[in-house]
């Protein structure tokens, strides 16, 4: 595993271009006293939709979650043909043994985004650790793992639709405590700003229309609090297992959507809770041959909001009067949306350097939508099969087939997607978490 060769000019130049503002003396050990590791994860994906199905699962999306300019192709999957996928530039530095700093820039061919930028303490006593900055929440299992660590090309539906396109990724503070017990027992709480679309969507105050105030109001952060516990008994050299339980409460959940003549506004709260488990079997052979990994997560989310729509025009799209005045209030109601999602996946190393895996997912087994007269759309399902080949440790090539069985208002429709992923880790990439 160990230090991967970044010392070559090519990656050094790339890194320097990508973070032009940062004075880099030398690519690896930058300054005295600061131990800096740089790595670059490059990814390419070929995507082919073999059969078109419903675009999004019933009860989720439908224009609510992604109307605010955040649309660089993640949500609706990939473009037909070649995609740059999800590449990352990772900088990790140590400040003595006092704290670690991590900066992860995620980029595709259009955008660069700060995925994570945080400090983590290394020397608090009694098993306590603090993390501050922007980071991936430690709720659940896959949420805190980066895409090149995943066993499948794409994010599980439950993580994407109950949290967001990047999972639960927030700015805030995390405190954890590792118990001094024989079995690994980690407790943690996070105080987060609260902006994740699925559980803490925030719009802030919207301007009044013709004197009519909107129901949306400013709420200062932090607006989201989460808590989690992880437990992992020691099962000897061959087996390892970790169980997790997590929950969160957002004291503000807001939506606003422009319909043809009115804004639909939601203002309220949301909470979620979930369970996760991962099991790994180490066969003790070379290059992962005979190893097993099983992983599953379940999350349940409740959005509890007041709704009040306000007319912003008194003519419809054809120019005819609607019979209502600008500023009129409609559709005043309070309702709850209760939804959940689950996935289970298994990966087996069927030959040295070769892995094959299956994943089954369900979204909306509970799918009670309180909006309007209320509805209970059918659940949606997705099944994936993949094969991964690692010619050498830092490189993998993965082929995956997704069978989408999504419900929507008009019924079920089954789609079939094919993905081919090439992922390369260059440079001194840090050790992977369990």
């Amino acid at each position, binding site marked *: *595993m*160990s*230090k*991967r*060769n970044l010392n070559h000019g090519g990656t050094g130049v790339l890194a320097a271009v990508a973070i032009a503002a940062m004075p880099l003396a030398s690519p690896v050990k930058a300054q005295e006293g600061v131990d800096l590791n740089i790595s670059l994860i490059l990814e390419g994906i070929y995507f082919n939709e073999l059969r078109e199905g419903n675009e999004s699962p019933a009860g989720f999306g439908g224009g609510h979650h992604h109307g605010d300019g955040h649309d660089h192709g993640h949500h609706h999957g990939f473009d037909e043909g070649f995609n740059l996928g999800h590449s990352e530039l990772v900088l990790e530095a140590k400040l*003595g*043994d006092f704290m*670690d700093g991590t900066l992860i820039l995620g980029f595709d061919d259009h955008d660069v985004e700060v995925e994570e930028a945080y400090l*983590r303490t*290394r*020397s*608090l*006593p009694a*098993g*306590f*650790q603090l993390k501050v900055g922007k980071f991936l929440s430690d709720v659940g299992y896959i949420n805190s793992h980066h895409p090149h660590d995943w066993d499948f090309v794409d994010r599980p539906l439950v993580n994407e639709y109950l949290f967001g396109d990047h999972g639960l990724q927030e700015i805030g503070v995390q405190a*954890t*405590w*590792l118990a*001094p*017990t*024989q*079995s*690994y*027992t*980690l407790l943690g709480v996070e105080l987060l700003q609260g902006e994740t679309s699925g559980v803490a969507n925030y719009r802030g105050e919207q301007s009044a229309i013709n004197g009519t105030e909107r129901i949306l109001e400013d709420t200062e952060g932090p607006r989201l609090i989460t808590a989690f516990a*992880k437990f*992992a*008994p*020691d*099962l000897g*050299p061959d087996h*390892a297992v*970790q169980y997790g339980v997590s929950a969160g409460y957002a004291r503000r959940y807001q939506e606003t959507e422009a319909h043809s003549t009115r804004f639909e506004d939601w203002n309220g709260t949301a909470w979620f809770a979930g369970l996760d488990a991962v099991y*790994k079997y*180490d066969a*003790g*052979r*070379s*290059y992962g041959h005979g190893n097993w990994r099983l992983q599953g997560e379940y999350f349940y989310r409740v959005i509890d909001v007041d709704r009040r729509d306000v007319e912003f025009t008194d003519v419809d799209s054809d120019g005819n009067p609607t019979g209502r005045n600008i500023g009129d209030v409609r559709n005043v109601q309070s309702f709850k949306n209760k939804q959940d999602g689950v996935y289970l996946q298994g990966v087996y190393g069927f030959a*040295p*350097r070769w892995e094959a895996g299956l994943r089954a997912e369900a979204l909306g087994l509970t799918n009670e939508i309180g909006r309007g007269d209320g509805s209970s759309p059918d659940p949606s399902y997705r099944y994936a099969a993949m094969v991964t080949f690692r010619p*050498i*440790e*830092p490189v993998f090539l993965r082929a995956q087939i997704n069978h989408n069985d999504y419900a929507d208002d008009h019924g079920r429709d089954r789609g079939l997607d094919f993905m081919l992923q090439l992922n390369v*880790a260059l440079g001194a990439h*840090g*050790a*992977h*978490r*369990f």
Partner: protein
Amino acid sequence: MPLKRYVIVLLAMVLASAWTAPQAQPLEVVATTPSLGMLARAVGGDQVRVRVLAPDDRDPHYLDARPSYMAAVRRADLLLEMGAGLEEGWLPAVLSGAANPAVNEGRRGHFRASDTLSLRRSVTMDGPNVGHVHAEGNPHFNIDPLRMAVLADALAKRMGQLRTEKADYFLARSEDAAQRLRQHARALADRIPADRQFVAYHEDLDYLEEWLPVKVLGYLEPVPGVPPTARHLRRLVRDLEGREGRVLHARYQPSRGAGFLQRHLGWDIHAVSLEPPVDADLEGYLELMSQWAAVFGGG
């Protein structure tokens, strides 16, 4: 007020136990590999309690940063690692998740064996390489009893810093262990006919050259960390045609490449253990040394 007094007494008890406990208890040692665990037992005697992370039948390069490892390191007074990049794929994650500043890098509770030794060059330093570079040198010195003897002394000094009242005890034990390691190494070397040659799977058997009259001729891996290719094996056979030798590989490494050399050169294959059992003491390691020597006809 009785409640207040009760709280004070309780607090005093907690403080007192926190004060006295570390002195009375044995040193909690976590060792990444069985060889280091063996050394900790040899030096620490009844003053240490040792937990070994890597099983003896696994490649220590490729382990998961398991939660159970973090739980062990969380409670450690002393963490022993080989260093030089051997555990780089997993130990940093274990350490960062263990939330135990006493064993942070650079602290007294963190013993990095490679820092106290001069290492052989690693073939990875001469490139081209693909993701497996040991820039500080070859980290597989666990099979070199002479370097283990040097380590015993360094480890005794470190344990002495953590338990000053037992410093002499540790030193005496380390001197004894070092002497036995050197004696056994010399005895085994004397029994082996000169210039025995071998091909290894990885550079993890190079240090046999340091104490036995043997020579490494090459590796089954074309590049460290990359499995044998047909082209590389054919070239090995071409280069070694007509010579006497043997093929060695760790039990956890695949034997297919070795089989190719056996068929074309008529060499014997020896699957060996690179580490003593996880609960081994000095005797277990001396026994393992004998097993290595036996491969070359010096058992």
